[in-house]
């Protein structure tokens, strides 16, 4: 939060308070001890205003303002929970639920409940269901669960790791997170730090151990499975 010592007054849900200049609406809302829901926002990654779930209504504005990237200005009057805002949030959740597997996103499930979102509102939507990518010993990529929040791309890039193995690709409905040329992770610059896994909100990226344990395997079985897979590989003529 940058602060040159100056403050301004804004009104949030009817309460006027004085906040430092230069902060975002989201920071101001937190100072007012109010809350907005988020999907793409993460404390450790750069906000891009992608998901629009944190939108609020600003008096006199034609559009809803994404709180994570909109700076405060003098005299702003905000509504964080108006009918227009909740309708927008509900629709975002319904569109996500129609195309994406949110079964491992407890926070989004809670939001669905809060905003009374109907997961079947768009029955003709085609769910995205690419195959699970299992190309390294450490984590799997299940893009059926991906909500395109970009956190992983930013974590891999200039927010945490400076490794630049992940990027966005494709357009519109076909846009997706991937590696350059869709290469398997071991053939990229990836160093398997898993900082991307840590910021993923939906388990689209997750630790392989966690996945296998969820399938009911214990550590010894996971090791056995690994050894067997390796044996099969070796038997298949692939040399180590």
């Amino acid at each position: 939060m940058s602060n040159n010592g100056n403050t301004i007054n804004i009104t949030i849900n009817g309460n006027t308070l004085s906040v430092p200049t230069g902060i975002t609406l989201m920071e101001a809302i937190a100072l007012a001890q109010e809350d907005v829901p988020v999907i793409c926002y993460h404390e450790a990654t750069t906000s891009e205003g992608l998901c629009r779930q944190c939108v609020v209504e600003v008096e006199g504005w034609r559009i809803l303002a994404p709180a994570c990237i909109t700076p405060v200005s003098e005299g702003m009057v905000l509504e964080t929970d108006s009918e227009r805002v909740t309708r927008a949030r509900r629709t975002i959740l319904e569109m996500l639920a129609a195309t994406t597997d949110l079964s491992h996103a407890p926070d989004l499930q809670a939001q669905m409940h809060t905003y009374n979102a109907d997961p079947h509102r768009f029955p003709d939507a085609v769910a995205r269901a690419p195959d699970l990518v299992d190309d390294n010993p450490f984590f799997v990529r299940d893009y059926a669960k991906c909500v395109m929040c970009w956190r992983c791309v930013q974590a891999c890039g200039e927010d945490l790791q400076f490794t630049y193995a992940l990027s966005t690709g494709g357009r519109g409905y076909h846009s997706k997170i991937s590696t350059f040329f869709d290469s398997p992770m071991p053939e990229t610059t990836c160093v398997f730090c898993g900082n991307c896994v840590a910021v993923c909100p939906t388990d689209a990226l997750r630790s392989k151990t966690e996945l296998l344990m969820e399938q009911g395997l214990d550590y010894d079985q996971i090791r056995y499975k690994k050894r067997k897979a390796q044996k099969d590989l070796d038997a298949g003529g692939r040399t180590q």
Partner: protein
Amino acid sequence: MTAIKAQEVVRSTCPYCGVGCQVDLFIKDEKIFKVEAPFEVAPNFGRLCVKGRFGFDFVHHPSRLTRPLIRKNIGESPRKAVGMEGFRPASWEEALELAAEKLSAVAQQHGGDAIGTFCSAKASNEDNYLFQKFVRGVLKTNNVDHCARLCHAASVAGLTIAIGSSAMSNSIAEMKNLEVFIVTGSNTSETHPVISTFLREAVVKNGAKLIVIDPRGIEMTQYATHWLQQKSGTDVAVFQAMAHTIVTEKLYNASFVEQRVENFETYSASLEGCTPEWAEKISGVPAEKIRDAARLYANAGSAAIYWGMGISQSVHGTDNAISLANLALLCGHLGRPGTGLNPLRGQNNVQGCSDSGGLPNVFPGYQSVTDPGTRNKFEAAWHGELNPDAGLTTMEMVDAAEADSIKAFFIMGENPMMSEPDLRHARHVMESLEFVLVQDIFFNETGEYADIIFPAASFAEKDGTFTNSDRRVQLIRPAVPAPGEARPDWEILCDLAKRVEKKIGGPHSAGFEFTSPAEVWDEMAGLTPPFQGITHDRILLEHGVHWPCPTPDHPGTPYLFEESFPSGKGHLTPLEYNPSAELPDDQYPFMLSTGRVLYHWHGGTLTRRSKLDDIYPNPTVEIHPQDAEKLGVTAGEWIKLRSRRGEIRVKSLVTERSPVGMVFIPFHFAEAAANELTLDARDPKAKIPDYKVCAVSVEKI
């Protein structure tokens, strides 16, 4: 399928490198199934590397030691290395009693100095405090040392001469705001991965200028403004020439030199002849590049130096460290944020093990064992007379065992049979000992020589503190139960010490009745002024405290030397360049360097038992494409490396990372141990062996 829910989330400290990342261990059914890191907490602020995030499965490995073991043919001489089948399980009672009996017998017949002991840079401060208390207070010897001898002993020796203190002077948290910095002899992105992210951040986001001085084209060179690619072992020449430039072009900080530095006249006179052209001839680094780097470093408002094993693991390791200290002293780049002399510590608690008295010449807090006043303090606290003579270092203990003046070894959490140089020699020594006691979490190459093995709890199964590279004392906590009958090191040590005291002790016990590591810490802090403001409770509240922290209301010290140096004034030391002990010749035409890779850890005891081994399963050798072509070696081919000491088989990794004429091997692989090849040539001041320069031949199989 629904996601696994953690039954418990336990905050702890990563057990791998010296960065000391804070981690949250997610536990279900007594197993760690996930590791995350808190974004708001130093030193890593949410960042982890592959080892910290995915490499903790060793904790649950089926080969963990679960019962005390006694060698079946105990007493037979010479002792031969045996596998697990050479041991029988025993009760704690039997194993402890027998160990106490054997140690007491050696101490009574030959004196305490006939016992050599290795404490552990992987164990906690509390474990190490008790270990050296047992060795000093009960066995009455100062023969206690650990693997810091094999890593940063030269940094310690050099910095002690220059400024009187050896720890990393500045903190990790300062890194992302750097202006100019030097990385030398450190493959930071593989050995201290999380630190490397902050260094990269400084370059990418803060516009910092990086000078890399390293023979290998390591990843950090991609972020460097200047890369000085010196020939291995010629570091002193390069740093001396930088100093020459700084002095002749009058780029030094005159007021700093006047106020805080001594010996400037003699030192600057000694630089005559150390021109960049002279250094170019020795090191192969173009003179102009040396001048540019010197100007960049000297003209910066603040500039820091970071180094690793490439500087210290050398026959001129001490001189290397001194030559870096000379640069910082000349330019006044000390005692402010973003400056400093920063040896990056390799092991999770190598700083803490040294701090806790795991060295042959000092009690906890680097208080000299030969100083009568200090000794009196510890004699009063531990209720008995103490040995007034400094003990032996790791390799001196090996030498003393060979000369038969040391009869027994007690080794806790170290694997000297992987980490010592010239392993063939070390093995011979282990065979001749009367008694070897090992305490570890796994059966490793050293365990093969043990008479008795105590199974210990891992970092995830006990309380205690680790001190990371920037002197931050942080907590570990029990997250899962120890397997079988394994017990925390501190408990085992207390039991063993009490039994040995019963057999040989004086009228009063040195004191081994503790109910928790927090109590052990309090006793150590009471005797160690820089720790006196730190308690386990305080660390819990603040997540970590940087020592020195002399009082409870002291905030701790992220960067040192703001006002003065421990030695008063900083000392500029004239140096001479000397060539390395063994250089390539017709028979052994390649220069060999050793080091680490991202996916493995030191002797491999942990990472070879982790899924980390899946991605890097084989021992490798980096060889330049030109050399590979000349020898007809193709990528991925198994080849033989041979030195005057031994030979190993490794898989070729054809890459321009290592220069023509040099090969590089990681030392993690027991089946191709790098130290079969290395030579036992030591730095005369620090006694550290040279792991980075020896001569080998490369042969097709």
